[in-house]
């Protein structure tokens, strides 16, 4: 039996997976176990994956999500050099797990049948869980990983229930087949509703949407900062892409079933996420809760996925969100390395006494808040609200407006803290390692991109589908 392989889809994922294996083997056979020993093969593999993706000349939402995933992974791999000399973190395993999760993310986005989707989701989830608990001897990390694992297993089980129901009703698991079968009037409507909702649950879990959000603050807070950045940007972009493709390609016939669910989940998610972020006094915790709220903003335009902006709005939003979030997390990773803390009280005045890291952090916060001068953040906020309004979900648009205001409350608090006057000299590590410069350079490149996009938003908006 031969299985036909569509290499235009599987190519980048295969390249990244090979890179992961190479990184592991190099690390295992190279006795000194330095960070670069496995980091260089990983970087090369991601670059090769990007080249492969671009070579295939693909278009559409899967291509855009794949690009976001690969660029995000590249960002994380380079910025992770900040963990160099951290003895508790095994570099080979770290890169292997990171690349495996990245390959899973690529397959999730381009899956065309539900079984592939579920398998790829596991390929994304399990390495992520291991990454969260990877730091040796860190009880908090292991506990976070355990939480993450149990929640993940439960949601996968629910998704499999939904998938089996779908198969029972329609007799197929291909997206194209499901699409045709669901418009058949003989299919019992209520069973389809239950099946669709249960199937979507797994993806909502990966996205960190309420009520499947509880693992997010724990996992982000318990793991190393760059892994949190990976989860918030790459993993989230992949699961949003998978959800979008699944709903648009396989389940448009069941729009009546999932439309209200997605709308309610989006509204509740952004509200709960913002409210949770209000009282955080640690920058990583604040970003964790805020990424829950941002998931709500990404979900909102999904209700209008069949409309004119249905696919492009979430893509554009997630691209800018991922960039801003990665800049923020990388800057915080550097801060944690140099100052030993990411508490807001310790960040006070950073835009003044450490402008090279403080100002990118301000810029990222303003982008996430959608507040000028970070125009691109404002533009993407408009981009996601527009389809919601056009699709006559006025109540959802109102909730989004209220949440933009709620978000301003804590993002601007972060900005004010960063721009305020520091009380006394902050503690700064007396001998920063050279490898911090890699992370710093990613932060600066990322924030330069944000500045360019703010000056010329069309550069992004007209080049994404």
């Amino acid at each position: 039996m031969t299985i036909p392989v569509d290499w235009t889809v599987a190519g980048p994922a295969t390249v990244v997976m090979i890179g992961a294996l190479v990184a592991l083997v190099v690390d295992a056979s190279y006795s000194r176990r330095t960070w670069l020993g496995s980091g260089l093969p990983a970087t090369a593999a991601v670059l090769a994956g990007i080249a492969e993706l671009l070579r295939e000349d693909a278009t559409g939402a899967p291509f855009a999500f794949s690009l976001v995933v690969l660029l995000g992974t590249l960002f994380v791999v380079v910025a992770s050099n900040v963990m160099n000399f951290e003895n508790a973190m095994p570099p080979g395993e770290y890169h292997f797990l990171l690349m495996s999760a990245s390959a899973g993310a690529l397959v999730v986005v381009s899956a065309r049948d539900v079984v592939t989707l579920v398998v790829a989701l596991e390929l994304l989830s399990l390495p992520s869980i291991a990454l969260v608990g990877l730091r040796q001897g860190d009880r908090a990390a292991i506990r976070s990983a355990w939480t993450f694992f149990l929640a993940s297993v439960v949601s996968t089980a629910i998704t499999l229930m939904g998938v089996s129901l779908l198969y029972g009703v329609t007799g197929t698991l291909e997206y194209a087949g499901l699409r045709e079968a669901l418009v058949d009037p003989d299919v019992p409507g209520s069973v389809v509703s239950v099946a669709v909702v249960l199937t979507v649950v797994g993806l909502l879990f990966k996205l960190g949407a309420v009520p499947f959000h509880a693992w997010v603050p724990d996992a982000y807070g318990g793991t190393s900062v760059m892994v949190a950045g990976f989860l918030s940007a790459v993993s989230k972009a992949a699961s949003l892409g998978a959800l979008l493709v699944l709903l648009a390609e396989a389940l448009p016939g069941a729009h009546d079933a999932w439309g209200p669910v997605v709308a309610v989940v989006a509204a509740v998610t952004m509200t709960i996420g913002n409210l949770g972020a209000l009282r955080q006094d640690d920058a990583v915790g604040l970003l964790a809760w805020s990424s829950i709220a941002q998931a709500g903003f990404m979900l909102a335009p999904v209700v209008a996925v069949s409309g004119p902006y249905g696919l492009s709005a979430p893509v554009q939003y997630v691209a800018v969100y991922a960039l801003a979030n990665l800049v923020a997390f990388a800057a915080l990773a550097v801060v944690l390395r140099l100052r030993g803390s990411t508490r807001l009280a310790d960040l006070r005045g950073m835009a003044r006494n450490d402008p090279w890291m403080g100002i990118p952090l301000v810029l990222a916060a303003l982008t996430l808040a959608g507040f000028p001068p970070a125009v691109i953040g404002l533009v993407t906020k408009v981009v996601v609200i527009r389809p919601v309004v056009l699709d006559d979900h006025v109540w959802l648009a109102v909730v989004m407006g209220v949440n933009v205001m709620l978000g301003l409350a804590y993002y601007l608090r972060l900005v004010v803290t960063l721009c305020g006057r520091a009380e006394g000299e902050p503690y700064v590590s007396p001998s920063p390692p050279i490898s911090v410069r890699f992370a710093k350079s990613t932060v600066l490149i990322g924030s330069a991109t944000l500045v360019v996009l703010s000056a010329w938003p069309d550069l992004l908006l007209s080049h994404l589908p």
Partner: protein
Amino acid sequence: MIRRWGYVGITAVLAVVVAIWAVPELGRDTVTFVTIGQTGPDGGPPLPSLSPDLLIYPGTAQILLLAVGVGLLVQIYSTAYLGHHPRYRSYALVIVLFLIAMIAVVGTTNLWVLLVGWEVMGLCSYLLIGHEWESPVARAGAAKAFLVTRIADLGLVMAIIVIGETYGTYDIVGAQVAQSEQPRHATLIGLLVLVAVVGKSAQFPLHTWLPDAMPGPTPITALIHAATMVAAGVYLAARLFQLYADSQVVLTAMAVVAAITMLMGALFAWVQTDLKRALAWSTVSQLALMLAAVAVGDPEAGTDHLLAHGVFKALLFLGCGCVMLAVGSSALSSMGGLRRRMPVTFWTMTAGFAALAGLVPTAGFFTKDSVLHAIERATDGDRGLAAGTAWVLLVVALVTTFVTAAYATRLWVLTFFGAGHGAGPHGTLGQDVREAPLAMAGPLVVLAVATFALSVGQPLHLGTGLLSTVIAVAGVAAVLVAARRGSTLAWAPRPLAAELWLDRPFSRWILALGTGASRVVVELDREVVDVYPRGGESLAATISRGLGLAQSRNVQRYATVLAVGVVMLVVIGVVVS
């Protein structure tokens, strides 16, 4: 020094540009319509849009030239008068800003541009009255001027909205075209315009801000509170005259306001013991005379008098500044006997007082004559105003002419003649009392020449001309005879000296009312309106705290939430679909 002349240079450039643009229009009969960008009136839907269209006709050109001319002279004058002030730069730049706003108000055809210019003028006026903000009097005067003219601005905004709603355009020319086809809402528009004029031009009952604006620098008084800004109210009335010309109610109200204000202002000017304040009341009175011309249906006579008055009143205020600089005060009691020490100031101000009194051959005589003639023509009753009203207006105007001549002579005598009441202990003036420097005396000479030059080509109406001359000469003679007999010219009955207590509503009652009302508003805001934001805030904080507690790192609890969530989502999905 160079720095100070830089601002004069900016003003001069502005003046030259305006002159190149406006001078050719002076003798032209047709109207030049400068459109920039969009075309003129198109009768489109009334959107509050700003358009840069400018319309200029001979009357407009004259007022523009007056504004930039006086503005330039005031800038030159200020280099000497205020050049060493630490905030000279902001002062000079605000003058330039003011002139630009004035050009916008006078030149535009778009009502919203007019409103913007009108507001900017009010702001500049506020800033310049309060230029000496160290002094509490200046602060209070500035605040009062700002608040009272706000009432006028309200009237203007309402008038603009009503015009837009009535005629479907915010273009003055477009509205006039539409009005000539079908006049509507004339009374409403007219009354709102009247509110705007009454506030901006300091007419009864909103007149009290102008005398209180006198703590501002004297050159500013000459520019803004005599020649240009206060006159803009009258200009507005003349410009929009066509829109309410049919309404007898408006014209009668305007005539009544003008009659009350002109006599009251003249009488108040008579009793003042302060030269600058007397000139301020005189301005109020003269503005009322212009408004009277508009009320009797001859706005051109009004704008003509506006022009002449702008010149001679700027001259008088600038001369007053010279005197103040010499004796160090604007109180009449500290002046006297300045004739020999300050010959240039004396002769130029003499010309100014003559124009104020309405004596031949100054421009003041001719333009006042035109106004009186217009009122006299209106007494036949077929010009919109009832004959009786016009007769009353004429009588009041003639009485005002007498009082004006009298107080002008009084001020002239008290300032320049006599032994010098403010003299030193030995009965002679101090040695430091001398003629003003060239930068200050020069503008006086220019304005004095203009006071005579503007009378060239003015129409002469023999009947009213003779009558007003006789009355004015009688007024002058009466005062001169009294002065010759040794009178101190201090006849000031108590009600007049207290300015009829007309300021009391503003200084006490409205203040008391406002304090009470504002306290209620603050209480309401704090106790009622703020409940929502504060409630929302505490609700958000409570939920946030609850979420923090729920984030217990307890996996069983997470799994419970997850399971319950799934069930609820399935219910939503099934029930709604």
